[in-house]
């Protein structure tokens, strides 16, 4: 059993209205000095067996092409045992 965690974030140059709304709300609720907020997605994927070789490569490809949209998003993927 392996656990893959993929974090997907909007690229820095893309406007993030959700992040901005959260930033506003944090400020209104009394948190001072919030310089920036970005909101992204996190996928937690459990796969049977080891994730190696071709299957790992495919997972990478799918993280890039399915789970994120490379036009506007960056992804980071890590495999936990």
């Amino acid at each position: 059993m392996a656990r893959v965690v993929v974090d997907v974030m909007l690229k820095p140059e893309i406007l993030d209205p959700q992040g901005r709304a959260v930033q506003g709300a944090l400020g209104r609720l009394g948190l001072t000095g919030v310089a920036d907020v970005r909101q992204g997605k996190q996928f937690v994927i459990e796969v049977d067996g080891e994730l190696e070789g071709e299957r790992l490569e495919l997972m990478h490809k799918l993280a890039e092409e399915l789970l994120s949209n490379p036009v506007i998003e960056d992804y980071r993927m890590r495999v936990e045992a």
Partner: protein
Amino acid sequence: MRIGVVTFPGSLDDRDAARAVRIAGGEPIPLWHGDDDLKSVDAVVLPGGFSYGDYLRCGAIARFAPVMHSLVAAAEGGLPVLGICNGFQILCESHLLPGALTRNDSLHFVCRDQRLRIEDVTSMWTSDFDAGQEIVIPLKNGEGGYVADEATLDRLEGEGRVIARYLEVNPNGSRRDIAGIRNERGNVVGLMPHPEHAVEALTGPTTDGLPFFTSILTSLVAAA
């Protein structure tokens, strides 16, 4: 003329798109997401809706449907394709059109009668409009903010590939008020508002959407 209308799981405006094709004088042909047969149609509409629930990202999962394999190849070969709303999102996800559509800046779903200006009448789907014509058609989306990098936006504008722009109100934070774009060749068009909901005076705010559907028939006849 046979105009295909694709149904994905979660497509909602497929019946409406077919009705619009019929009212314009075309023959709507249902296409199924799981079938890569394009049934020798002359053009295709990717309708609005929430394909696959739009759960991951709008259009992200639909892009991998069997029908899209055939469609991408055919579109690259010149088959006319109009993507409306979710269809526009699918076209961007499939890289038939540049850029992407993101969450509305209001963070709310918005349904309104939207004024647009038709900026480009050279595409196969806008040729029946007058250049600069102003129209009002429904807009309804939660993720309709068009984004692309500055270079892409400059290129789209420079090449006259912005086909429609929002007037009065930018309802979703689209860059440069872009409501729709086309590819270089002019056969592939993506549009966020819904012309198929403005083809009958009874049910739409106007009938301003009809020329999108008559344009394609005119263009196909001219090309034949």
